[in-house]
Structures are given as structure tokens and as C-alpha cells.
């Protein structure tokens, strides 16, 4: 993972399914979703269909983003992938295995930072290490590096209450990376950031993902961000969410921010925007950040 040290091998093997999963998932799909549908029971009584007939794959090492109007079911899909929601139809597998619950192969960045207010920033980032029984010293070392990576060096001893929203979100990203998961699920991780920091974080995420060969599934409201980061962009319809289109982004890698000047970039962004305008719904999707 770039300039970051990996955790010592003996700790990696302690991540139960981790080692086996990677070996079984040859060039195959890291994530497979077939005919996924999910209805929530509402307090009013009649169920509300969040997503229906959603199918897609994410290959190992691929970066896939999903864009769609607010409330179309993006978070629902992500939570199902993370093993946090059941009672859905269709099939979902991670690394060739049907999802039966959460697995530490996945790192999740939630839509809200969800830091523990009683833990310092550093202790929040090392939390996954405590759950997965990793060696505390190695965790702290790695947490420091990750915090530096997301631009929070010097804030290790602060409490979350003393951070801004964007800083909390960045701490949550560092936390999701602590146990070096092969798959990253990110739910609008940069929503609370200013444009400049967001650009910097995008570049950093692209670097982490490509250097560490991570599989990333990213939800975003920024079309530009999705095009900049992804190998493929899934466009989702308004509720009940379906996949309207899958758009390959064949801009060369590594990409830097100059790519926005590329005409292919601009055309792709425009194309996705048109698709989203057709589906209607709440236009929370923006062209730029």
C-alpha cells in the first residue's frame, strides 16, 4: 500500500478468511451481484422497494463507482455488500463466496464518519485492530502513517469532537484502511470535504487503490470524481434503483488532475449527466465537486 508498511505477515494470516479468499479469487470477480432486490418495511405498513434487479460485477483490483439520484438505493447496495443487511432477493458474492455476513476482507467507509467520541483520533483508527486482535504496536504505527496519509498528522491525540466534519471523514477513511482490506466499500467518503482537499484525497485514493491492487466500490455524487477515479461507472436510476448503464472509463492511468482538460473526460462526464437527467429524481448529482 504505497509508502505504508504492511502489517507483519503473522498478523495478516489472523484475518481469518483473508488469505484464502484472495487465492480463490484468481482473475475472477471480487464482487458479483445478480438480480438484487431489497424492500424495506416502513412504519406506514406497505413496503418500500429500495432497489430491484440490480446486477453487476467488480473484478479484482477494479475501481467501480456508482452514481445516482438521492434515495435511489446506493447505500442499500453497499450495506448488502458489507453483509450488514439481509432480507434481500438475488445473490451477492464477495471473492466467489456467497455473502452470509460481514467479513474482515472488506473495509467500509460509511456515509457518516461514525467515530467513537470517547476515543482519540488515533484510538479510533486502531479500533479495527482491536476487533481483529491484531498486534497493538504494529496497529498504532500503521494508524500514524495512515493519518499522515489523509493529512491528519498531529491530530492523533485529539478527540473527534475537536475535529471538523471533513477531518472526521478522513479519520474514518484511515480507519477503514487499517487492517489492509482487499476490498474497499466507500459511501460518499469525500462529501464533507472542500474542493481542494477533495482533489488531493482523490489523487491519494487513486494511488492507494492502484499500488495496493485494491478493489474499490465507491458511491459518489460527483460525476467528475467518479470519472476521474474509476475504471467503470455504474449509473443508477431513481427508486427503485436499477443499473441504467455501465460506462467504461478508458482514460490512461496513472491519471493526474490534468485529465479534466482531456476531451474524453469532459465527454464522459456529459454523457453520464445526460443519463442522470433522463432518470429524473432529486438532482443531487453535480457535474463538478
Amino acid at each position: 500500500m504505497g509508502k505504508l508498511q504492511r502489517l507483519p505477515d503473522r498478523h495478516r494470516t489472523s484475518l481469518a478468511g483473508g488469505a484464502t479468499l484472495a487465492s480463490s479469487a484468481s482473475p475472477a470477480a471480487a464482487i458479483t451481484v445478480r438480480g438484487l432486490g431489497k424492500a424495506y418495511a416502513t412504519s406506514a405498513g406497505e413496503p418500500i422497494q429500495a432497489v430491484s434487479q440490480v446486477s453487476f460485477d467488480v473484478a479484482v483490483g477494479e475501481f467501480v463507482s456508482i452514481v445516482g439520484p438521492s434515495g435511489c438505493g446506493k447505500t442499500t447496495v453497499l450495506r448488502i455488500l458489507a453483509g450488514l443487511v439481509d432480507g434481500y432477493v438475488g445473490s451477492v458474492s464477495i471473492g466467489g463466496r456467497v455473502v452470509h455476513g460481514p467479513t474482515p476482507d472488506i473495509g467500509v467507509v460509511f456515509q457518516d464518519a461514525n467515530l467513537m467520541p470517547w476515543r482519540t483520533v488515533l484510538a479510533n483508527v486502531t479500533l479495527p485492530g482491536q476487533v481483529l486482535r491484531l498486534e497493538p504496536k504494529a496497529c498504532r504505527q500503521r494508524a500514524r502513517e495512515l493519518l499522515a496519509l489523509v493529512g491528519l498528522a498531529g491530530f492523533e491525540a485529539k478527540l473527534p469532537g475537536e475535529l471538523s466534519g471533513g477531518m472526521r471523514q478522513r479519520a474514518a477513511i484511515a480507519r477503514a484502511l487499517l487492517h489492509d482490506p482487499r476490498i474497499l466499500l466507500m459511501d460518499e467518503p469525500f462529501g464533507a470535504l472542500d474542493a481542494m482537499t477533495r482533489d488531493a484525497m482523490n489523487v491519494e485514493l487513486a494511488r492507494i487503490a492502484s499500488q495496493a491492487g485494491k478493489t474499490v466500490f465507491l458511491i459518489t455524487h460527483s460525476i467528475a470524481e467518479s470519472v476521474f477515479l474509476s475504471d467503470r461507472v455504474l449509473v443508477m436510476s431513481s427508486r427503485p434503483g436499477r443499473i441504467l448503464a455501465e460506462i467504461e472509463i478508458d482514460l490512461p492511468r496513472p491519471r493526474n488532475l490534468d485529465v479534466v482538460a482531456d476531451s474524453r473526460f469532459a465527454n464522459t462526464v456529459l454523457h453520464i449527466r445526460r443519463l442522470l437527467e433522463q432518470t429524473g429524481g432529486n438532482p443531487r448529482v453535480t457535474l463538478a465537486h
Partner: protein
Amino acid sequence: MTATTEASPLPPKRRLSNAQRQVVSDLALTATLCVSAIATWQALVSFGIVSRLVLPLPSSIPASLASLIDSGALLDNLLTTLAEAAAGFTIATGIGLALGALIAEFRVVERIVYPYLIALQTMPKIALAPLLLVWFGFGLGSKIAVAAVISLFPILVNTIAGLKSCEPGRLDVLRALGAGRWDCFRLVKLPNALPFVFAGLSTAVMFALTGALVGEFVGSTQGLGYLIVQANNLMDIPGVFAVLAVLCVVGTAIFGAMQFARRKVLYWAPNEE
């Protein structure tokens, strides 16, 4: 606090901040109110408007207090009452936290125990004091029991509320890693519940003191409650007031200690006051 600021004759005049000035003026007002209340009281009694059998002269209370201290009666009985309250509070804390955790974590336990909890909670626990005297005897046991019974509920109710108030998003962070139930409890739910638990403990510690006193009222040969009843029976009203003054100081000290402990343990939580 005012004493030190006013008494320090340091030449480099330390300017008081606005906040400090506010505190000083608040304290001055409180002191003025206190002095004028006591002066009014003294006047009412010394001019015979209120009988000395009802209210003692404020000036007679220090003498009463001094004689209680000199005879050693105050310290002995104070320690007895404090020991009873502390024992009752400790028992209530143990049971309240354990039972609260079981009820919040296990639906079965909740379903079985909850009806009894509601029934017991709506009953005034003080009414049990005479019964507890019969069950646990005339000694310290019955006082500890009363203190425990009435201080149990604030702890229990707050522990349950605190454990159940956990934001689902915070639990998701752990659940997404495949964390077990125990990890979720110890790493998220329990710390999350602490502000509630502390609010419960602060109420409970005062209830425990009340419980010990009531236990002593019902039947005892020692403790501050016994002193009050005895002085009352002898129409020694200054004596009653002397004990009340001591209780006032004790209560304030306990409250201060709880606030201190709260700041230490809940450094991360904004103060509820």
C-alpha cells in the same frame, strides 16, 4: 475562590476576565442572600414572632454542633450513616449495572423481568423500610438494604437506557468487521452508555444517603437519622438543625465528588448541566 482573589495583595493587578467577574458577583449575591436570610430568621425568633420550639435561634446552632462534636457523637454516627449508604450504594451499583446489561442485551431477560421492574418502579420504595427492618434486623443490615433498594432503580433504568441508546451507525463500524457481541458491547455500547450510567449514579448516591437515614428513622440506635429522631423527641430543635447542617455539608461533598469523577471519566462528553 473569592477569598483567594480578594485576599491576594499582589501589586501586579491581575485583571479579572468577564467570566471571573461574573462568578465573583454571583457568589457575592448568594452570600448576601444567605446572610440576610439568617438575619431575618434570627430577628423573627428573637422578637418572638416565631416560637423557639418551632425554630431555634440560628445563633444557638453552632453551640449544639460543637457539643455534638466534642462528645464524639457526631463523628461516630456520621461514619455509621456513611458506611450504610456506601454499602447500599455499592450493592445497588453492582446489581444495577449487571441486571441492566442483561436486560438491555438479552430480549428473553427483558421480557421476563420487565413487568416486575415496572411494577416495582411505580411503588414508593420507602414503604418497604419497615418490612426490611423485620427482615434484616435492627442493626446495619436493614439500613443497607433500604439504601440499596431505593438507589437501585436510578442506576438500573439509566443503564438500560444508555445501552439501548447506541447509534446504529457506530455499531455498524464494528459489525462490518465481523465483531462479536461481546466486542460490540465492550467497545461501543458500554462507553456509549457511560453518560447515562453516571447520571444514574449521581442520583443513586443521594438516594442511598436518604435510604440510610430513613432506615435509621424506622428503628436504630446509631447513625445521623437516629440522632435526629432522638433530638426531636427531646425537643432539642437546635440539635436537629445541627445534624441537618452536617447532612447539608455531606451532601454537597458527595455531589462535588461525583462531579469530579464525571469530569475524569467522561472527559469526552459535554457536561449535562
